[in-house]
C-alpha cells in the first residue's frame, strides 16, 4: 500500500519517551566517549542474528567510540565514530571539516547477512562457478553442512569545498564489494544450486551548488557501475549429464547529469524545477552457454536505458489562510536495447527475443490547504498520473499487457494542530486506475487474468490520528488506518480481486516524577487479499506430478494478523545509578485459505500432497518474537560509567516453507528424487540470553 497519504505528528514528549524505549538493543555511549566491554549470547540465534554479527553463541567484544572535537579558534571539527568494532558488522568513520569552508569524511562499514538455514548437501563446487549435483542422490542428511551468506564491505568518501560567492562543491564516492553465496536453483529441475556472489558497486556523485538570495541551483553528475566477477555458472550432474548454464547479472554502468533549482518569487511563493538525463549501458559478452547456446544469438545485448526527468513546481501562500502546491512531472524511461532473436528454431527463425520495456509517466498534482479557525486546517488535493507502457512486439506473451494506464487520486484531510492538549488529523484518499485495452497472449487462461500492477483498481484509504495530552505528565497517541483495494478488469475474472489493510495503534507515556518514566504501546495490523484463478487439470506430466487432477476454480483468501506491544520503564535510582527495562512482543499469524470448485470428476489434489485427496491443508503460520531488555548504568566516577545489559530473546515459527510432510511426520525439505538430496533445515525456535558489561569513558 502506498504511504503517500501518511500524515504525521509532531514529536512530543511521548515520542521522545518511546525513542528511549525502542532504541538500540545494545546501549551506545554518549557523544565524546569510548566504551569497551564484553558480552555473551547463551545460544545460537539463527534467525534474529542474521544481521548483527552475533549469530552464534559465545562471547563478543563490545567496542564503540564517538568523539567530536572543535577547535574554536579555527572552527575546525574532528570526529571519529566507531561502532561494533568487536563484531563482524563493524563500522568506523573519520571526519574533518573547517566549518563553512572545506571538509571531508571517510567511512568503512560492513554488513554481513547469514542465511538462517542449515544446508546439508553433496553438491560440489559451492562458491565457484562450476557446480556438480550428486547422482545418484545422496541419502538426505549425509552430506556436509554448509553456511550461506553474504558480506558487504562499503567504503564511502565525501568531500566538500565552499568556493565562495554562494558556490559549494560536493563530491561523494562509494565502493562496495559484495562477497558470499546465496541459495539458488539449478533451473532445469528443482535441484539445489548456490549462486557465487563476487561483485562491486561504485557510486560517484559530484554537485556544484549555488545559493544566493532567492535562487538555489544544484548541478551535477551521478555515475554508477556494477561489476560482477562472474557471468555464468555451469552446472551438471556428477555423471556429467544434464548440463545447465545459469546466467548471472552482467556488468552495467550509468551516467546521469542533473540540474535542480528553486527560486523564491516572493517570500511566500517559490518555484522549483528538476531536470536530469541518465543512460545505463550493459554490453558485456553474453557468455558461452556451451553447445546449448543459440548459434545465431548476438554476442552481447547492447543494452541501453535512457531516463529523462523534467519537473516544475510551484508552492505558494497567496493569502494568509491558503497555501497551494502544484507540480508537473514527466519521466521517460526508454529501454533502447535493440530487439533481436535470442533463441531460434531448426529453420533458424527466432522464437525468443529479448524483452525491453519502456514507460513514460506524466503526473500532475495540485494540493491546497486552507487554515480554518482554532488551528484547524483543511487539505484537498488531486493527482493525475498518465502512463504509457511498452507492449512487447516480438515473441511470446505470458501475461496480458496494456499500452497505457491512467490513475487519478483525490485527497482530503482535516487537521488540528498547535494545541497543548489535542492535535490530530483525519485523512481520506480515493484513487481510480484504469487504462487501455489489453494485448492478450492468446491462451485461454492467460487471457483471463488481470495482472495486479496493471489491473483496474479502486483504492480507498482512511487514516485518523489523535495526539492527546490530558496533562503534562501523560500523553496518548491513537492511530487508525483502513485501506481497501478493489481490482477488476476488462479481460477475465482471474487474478487479485481485492485487498485490505487495517491498523490500530495506541501509544502512551507517563512521567511518574522527575526520575521515573513509563511508556507503552500496542499495535494490531491486519492485511487480507483474495485471489481467483483456475487450476488447470491437464498437467503436462501427470505421472511426475502424482496424477492428473480436476479442472477447478480456485479461490484463495490470504490474511496476516499481527499483534505487537511494548512496555518500558526508565528511572534514576540515585544520582549515580540509572536503570531501565523493556518488554517487546511481536506476533503474526498468516492464513492461507484455499478452496477449489471442481469442474470435472478427477481428483481434487495430487496424491503426493499432504492431507487427503479432498482436503489439502496449507496450515497457518505463526511467528513470535518476545524480547526482554534490562540495563543498569552506574557512574563510577564523574566521567565514567559502568553499564550492564541483559537481554532475553525468544523467537519461534512454525513456517513450513522448508519442510515435507510424510505420514510419519514433518521432515526437513530435501531436493530432487533420484538426484541431489540436499536438505534445508529451518530452526523453528531460538531462545537466547545476552549478558554484557561495558566501561564507558567520557571525554570532558
Amino acid at each position, binding site marked *: 500500500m502506498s504511504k503517500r497519504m501518511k500524515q504525521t*505528528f509532531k514529536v512530543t514528549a511521548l515520542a521522545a519517551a518511546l525513542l528511549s524505549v525502542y532504541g538500540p538493543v545494545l546501549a551506545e555511549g554518549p557523544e565524546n566517549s569510548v566504551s569497551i566491554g564484553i558480552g555473551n549470547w547463551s545460544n545460537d540465534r539463527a534467525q534474529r542474528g542474521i544481521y548483527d554479527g552475533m549469530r552464534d553463541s559465545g562471547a563478543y567484544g563490545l567496542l564503540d567510540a564517538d568523539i567530536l572535537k572543535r577547535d574554536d579558534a579555527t572552527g575546525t571539527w574532528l570526529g571519529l565514530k566507531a*561502532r561494533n568494532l568487536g563484531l563482524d558488522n563493524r563500522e568506523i568513520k573519520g571526519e574533518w571539516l573547517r566549518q563553512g569552508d572545506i571538509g571531508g569524511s571517510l567511512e568503512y562499514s560492513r554488513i554481513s547477512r547469514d542465511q538462517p538455514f542449515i544446508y546439508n548437501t553433496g553438491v560440489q563446487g559451492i562458491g565457484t562457478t562450476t557446480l556438480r549435483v550428486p547422482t545418484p542422490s545422496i541419502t538426505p542428511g549425509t552430506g556436509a553442512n554448509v553456511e550461506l551468506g553474504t558480506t558487504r564491505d562499503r567504503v564511502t568518501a565525501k568531500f566538500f569545498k565552499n568556493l565562495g560567492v554562494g558556490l559549494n562543491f560536493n563530491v561523494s564516492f562509494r565502493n562496495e564489494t559484495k562477497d558470499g553465496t546465496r541459495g539458488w536453483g539449478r533451473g532445469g529441475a528443482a535441484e539445489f544450486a548456490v549462486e557465487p556472489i563476487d561483485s562491486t558497486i561504485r557510486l560517484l556523485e559530484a554537485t556544484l551548488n549555488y545559493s544566493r538570495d532567492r535562487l538555489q541551483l544544484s548541478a551535477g553528475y551521478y555515475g554508477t557501475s556494477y561489476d560482477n566477477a562472474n557471468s555464468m555458472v555451469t552446472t551438471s550432474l556428477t555423471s556429467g549429464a544434464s548440463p545447465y548454464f545459469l546466467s548471472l547479472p552482467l556488468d552495467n554502468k550509468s551516467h546521469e547529469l542533473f540540474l535542480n533549482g528553486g527560486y523564491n518569487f516572493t517570500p511566500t511563493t517559490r518555484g522549483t524545477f528538476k531536470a536530469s538525463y541518465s543512460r545505463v549501458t550493459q554490453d558485456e559478452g553474453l557468455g558461452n552457454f556451451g553447445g546449448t547456446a543459440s*548459434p545465431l544469438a548476438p554476442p552481447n545485448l547492447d543494452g541501453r536505458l535512457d531516463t529523462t526527468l523534467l519537473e516544475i513546481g*510551484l508552492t505558494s501562500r*497567496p493569502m494568509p489562510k491558503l497555501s497551494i502546491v502544484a507540480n508537473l512531472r514527466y519521466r521517460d524511461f526508454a529501454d533502447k536495447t535493440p530487439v533481436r532473436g535470442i533463441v531460434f528454431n531448426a529453420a533458424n527463425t527466432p522464437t525468443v527475443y529479448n524483452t525491453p520495456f519502456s514507460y513514460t509517466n506524466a*503526473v500532475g498534482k*495540485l494540493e491546497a490547504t486552507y487554515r480554518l479557525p482554532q488551528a484547524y486546517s483543511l487539505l484537498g488535493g488531486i493527482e493525475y498520473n498518465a502512463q504509457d507502457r511498452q507492449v512487447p512486439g516480438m515473441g511470446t506473451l505470458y501475461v496480458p499487457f496494456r499500452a497505457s494506464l491512467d490513475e487519478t487520486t483525490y485527497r482530503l484531510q482535516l487537521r488540528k494542530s498547535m494545541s497543548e492538549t489535542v492535535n490530530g488529523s483525519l485523512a481520506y484518499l480515493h484513487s481510480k486506475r484504469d487504462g487501455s485495452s489489453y494485448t492478450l497472449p492468446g491462451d485461454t487462461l492467460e487471457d483471463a487474468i488481470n495482472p495486479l500492477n496493471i489491473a483496474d483498481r479502486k483504492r480507498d484509504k482512511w487514516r485518523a490520528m489523535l495526539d492527546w495530552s490530558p496533562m503534562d505528565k501523560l500523553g496518548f497517541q491513537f492511530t487508525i488506518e483502513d485501506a481497501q483495494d478493489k481490482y477488476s478488469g476488462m479481460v477475465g475474472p482471474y487474478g487479485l480481486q481485492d485487498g485490505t489493510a487495517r491498523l490500530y495503534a495506541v501509544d502512551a507515556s507517563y512521567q511518574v516524577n522527575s526520575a521515573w518514566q513509563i511508556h507503552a504501546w500496542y499495535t494490531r495490523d491486519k492485511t487480507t487479499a483474495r485471489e481467483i484463478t483456475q487450476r488447470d487439470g491437464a498437467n503436462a506430466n501427470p505421472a511426475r506430478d502424482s496424477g492428473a487432477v480436476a479442472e477447478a476454480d480456485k479461490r484463495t483468501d490470504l490474511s496476516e494478523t499481527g499483534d505487537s506491544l511494548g512496555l518500558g520503564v526508565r528511572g534514576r535510582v540515585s544520582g549515580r545509578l540509572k536503570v531501565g527495562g523493556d518488554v517487546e512482543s511481536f506476533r503474526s499469524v498468516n492464513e492461507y485459505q484455499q478452496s477449489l470448485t471442481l469442474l470435472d470428476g478427477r481428483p481434487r489434489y495430487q496424491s*503426493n500432497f499432504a492431507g487427503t485427496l479432498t482436503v489439502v491443508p496449507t496450515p497457518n503460520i505463526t511467528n513470535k518474537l518476545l524480547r526482554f531488555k534490562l540495563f543498569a548504568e552506574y557512574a563510577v566516577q564523574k566521567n565514567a560509567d559502568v553499564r550492564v545489559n541483559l537481554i532475553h530473546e525468544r523467537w519461534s515459527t512454525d513456517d513450513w516453507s522448508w519442510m515435507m510432510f510424510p505420514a510419519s511426520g514433518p521432515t526437513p525439505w530435501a*531436493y530432487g528424487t533420484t538426484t541431489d538430496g540436499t536438505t534445508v533445515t529451518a530452526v523453528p525456535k531460538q531462545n537466547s540470553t545476552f549478558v554484557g558489561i561495558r566501561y564507558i569513558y567520557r571525554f570532558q
Partner: protein
Amino acid sequence: MKGKRFGGLVSMLSSIVFAGAFMISSGFAAAPAQAAGPGPEVCKNCHAVAFESYSASKHSTKTDPRSPANAGACSTCHGDGTAHVKAGGGKGVGGMVKLSTKSVAADAINKTCLNCHQADPRRMHWQASVHAGRDVACTSCHQVHTSHDNVRDKLTQPQVCFTCHKEQRVQVNKPSRHPILEGKVSCSDCHNVHGNNPKQMERGSVVETCYQCHMEKRGPFVHNHQPVTEDCTICHQPHGTTIANLLKSRPPFLCQDCHASGGHPVQAAGLPTGRTTGTSLLGTVGRGCLNCHTNIHGSNSTQNSATAGRFRR
C-alpha cells in the same frame, strides 16, 4: 484515449499556471529581518542547558560566517529577546518564539530553519514535500538543543520515524527485513524526507533507489521480468514481511496474481509428502516457483530452449 489523458494534464497545467500567476502577484509577507538581541551570554543565565548545547553545536561556530553565531545567536531563531529580558523572562514574554508546534505554526518554524538550510540541495524541494504539506516542522523530527540529534543517527533514526509511521515499526521486526534495527540501513538511505520525489524516495524512482545497493537487478537483461523494470514494490515490501526475501506474499500466490498459464503455473498450493520433481507440487515449498524460475529478476541466457524467456537459466 491519449488525447483525453493528456488533455487532462493540459487542463491541470493551465490551472497551475493560472494559480502561479495569482500567487506571484499576491505575496503578502516580507522576509523576516534577523533580530538583534541581548546575546547568548545573557540568555544562559536562565537557559543554561540550551546554552550549553548551543555552545557545543555548529550553530555557535563563529568562524563560519553563515552560522547563527554571526547573525544574532539565540535571536536568529528565537527572535529579539530584549523585551523578554527587560521583563524578567517568562514563557512567551516579550514575543520570544519557542519553535514548538504546540505554539507555532509548522511553516513558520520551517521558515526559520530554511532561511539558512534551504540552500542544501536535499532541501531545495521541501515546500513541495508531503511532510511540508502535512504540517510537519523541522523540530517535529530534529532536536536542535542536543549533542545527539536522534534523527541524524542511523541507529536511532527509525525510532523517530516510527513516531508517526506505526506500520513500519511492526514491519521492521518481522522475520524478513532489512538490517534497520542494527543501524546498517536507515530510513534516509531510501527516503529523502525533505524532498518531493514519489514516495519521498532518495532518487527519482523506486527502482533507482533500490539500485543503489541492488544494482545487479538493474540489467538491462536479455530476458527482463516486466515488474522488475517498473517498481520493486510490486512484489516486495521493503520494510519487512513474514515471507522470505521481503516478498509481499508467498509463492505460488504472489506469482498467480499475474500468471495464469495452463499447467503447473496455476497449480493449487499444497505441501508435498516427500521428495518430488513434480512441478505442480513445488510451487509452495522451498523457494516456491523460484525453485525452477531461479533468475526471477532477469536472465541473460541464450540457451537454445523454448523456456529461455522464463527465467530458469
